[in-house]
C-alpha cells in the first residue's frame, strides 16, 4: 500500500538533499536580492537598465545598493562617474545637486594627510555625470572599490537621494576616500543608471546591483 502521508516528526531531514522540484508555500524572509553583476572587460560603460538583461530598476524594490569591486582602469586614468536616465527619457543627463568630500593619505606618509570639501566634484543642478571617486590609477594593482545607495528611484513624488563612499588607489600612490551624496532633482522615476570612467575604459572589475524590499 502506498503511503499517502508521513506523520509529523517521523521524517529525519538532518542530511543534505537536492530538491529538483519546485517548493512552494515557504515564506522566505529574504529581503536583499542580487539583481545583476556586471563585469567590466575593456568596457566604456556599465549600464543597469530596467527591463533589460534581467535588471529590475523600478518599484520592485524600495532601496537599491551598488557594490564596486576592484574597478581597474585601462589606458588613461579617470574618475568613476555615474548618471541616471528617467523612465521614458533619453540620455543620461538628469539634474543633480550633490556634495562631495574626501580624505587622503599618501603611501610615503609625507603628503595629503587631509580631509576637506571637494568642490571640483560636486554639482549644482548639473546634468553631467556625477564624480564618485578620485582618479583611479591604471597600474596593475590600482583600482577603486566602494558602495552606493539609491533610495526609491521609482518615486514620482520625491527627488531621489543617493549616498556613495569609495576608496581609490590613486596614480600618485595615495589612498583617497571619497564621500558623495545628493539627489536627482526630478519627480520622474529613474529607471536606468550608467557608470563609466571620466577617461579611459574599465579594464576589469565588477559592479553588483542589489535590491532591498
Amino acid at each position, binding site marked *: 500500500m502506498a503511503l499517502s502521508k508521513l506523520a509529523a516528526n517521523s521524517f529525519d531531514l538532518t542530511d543534505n538533499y537536492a530538491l529538483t522540484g519546485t517548493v512552494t508555500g515557504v515564506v522566505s524572509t529574504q529581503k536583499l536580492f542580487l539583481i545583476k553583476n556586471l563585469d567590466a572587460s575593456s568596457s566604456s560603460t556599465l549600464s543597469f537598465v530596467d527591463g533589460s538583461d534581467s535588471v529590475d530598476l523600478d518599484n520592485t524594490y524600495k532601496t537599491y545598493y551598488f557594490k564596486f569591486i576592484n574597478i581597474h582602469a585601462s589606458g588613461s586614468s579617470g574618475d568613476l562617474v555615474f548618471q541616471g536616465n528617467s523612465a521614458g527619457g533619453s540620455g543620461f543627463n538628469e539634474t543633480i545637486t550633490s556634495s562631495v568630500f574626501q580624505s587622503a593619505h599618501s603611501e610615503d606618509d609625507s603628503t595629503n594627510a587631509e580631509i576637506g570639501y571637494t568642490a571640483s566634484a560636486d554639482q549644482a543642478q548639473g546634468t553631467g555625470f556625477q564624480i564618485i571617486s578620485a582618479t583611479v590609477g591604471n597600474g596593475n594593482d590600482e583600482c577603486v572599490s566602494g558602495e552606493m545607495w539609491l533610495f526609491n528611484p521609482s518615486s514620482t513624488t520625491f527627488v531621489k537621494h543617493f549616498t556613495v563612499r569609495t576608496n581609490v588607489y590613486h596614480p600618485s600612490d595615495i589612498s583617497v576616500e571619497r564621500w558623495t551624496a545628493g*539627489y536627482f532633482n526630478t519627480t520622474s522615476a529613474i529607471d536606468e543608471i550608467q557608470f563609466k570612467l571620466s577617461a579611459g575604459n574599465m579594464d576589469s572589475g565588477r559592479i553588483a546591483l542589489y535590491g532591498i524590499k
Partner: protein
Amino acid sequence: MATASTSLSKIKANSLNLAGTYGFSGTVTGFDDTPLVLLSTFTSDGSDATASFTSGIDSTYKEYMFVFNNIHPQTDYATLLFNGSTDGGSNYNVTKTTTFFQAYHDEGDSATTLDYTTTTDLAQSTAFQNLGYGLGNDNDENASGILKLYNPSSTTHVKHFVSRINMNEYSGFSVDYNVAGYLNTTSAIDAIQFKMSSGEIQGGTIDLFGVV
C-alpha cells in the same frame, strides 16, 4: 497476523522522489541565509507624531539597520530625531555621546561646506539625537538614508550607532549628514523612536532589518 511496528528513523539519500510540487504548511528552517531580515516597516499615514519600533530589537541579531525612504515633514525646516529606550518604549531618554558632521552644497552653487557641528552633537545627554536638520516640506522634499545600531541587547557594553542621511534642506541645499555615537548604558536597548522636532512625519517609510 499482527505486524510489528517499525519506525523509520531516516530515509537514505536519493531514496525519496521530490521531483514534484509540494506545499509545506509547517516551518522550514536551516536554509535561509539571507543577510537581511525585514522585521517591521513604519509607513507614514500622513500624520504621525512619532515612528516607534517597540518589538524585534533583541538578541536575535548583532546588528540592526533602519532604512529611511522619502521621510517627508509637515513643518518646514524640520529636524529628524531619534532616541532609544530600555523599557520597551515607555521612555525614550537614554544617555548618549555623539559626533555630528555634515557636507552641503546648494542648488545655486553659492555655498559648500564640510564641517563639524557642535550644536547638534550630544555629550552625556538624554535628549533626542539630531540626525539631520533643515528638512524642507515642499512636496518633493524628503530625507533618505541609513542608521545602523550594533548589538543593542548587550548588557555589558555601550551600544554604538552610525547614520548617514541625505536631505533636501528647505532652501535648496543637498545636505549629507553623518552622525555616530553610543547609547551610554549597559542596559539592553529594546525600542527606538524617530520623530520630527516639530510637526508630524507626513510621508515615507522606515524599514527595520536584522542583519545576519
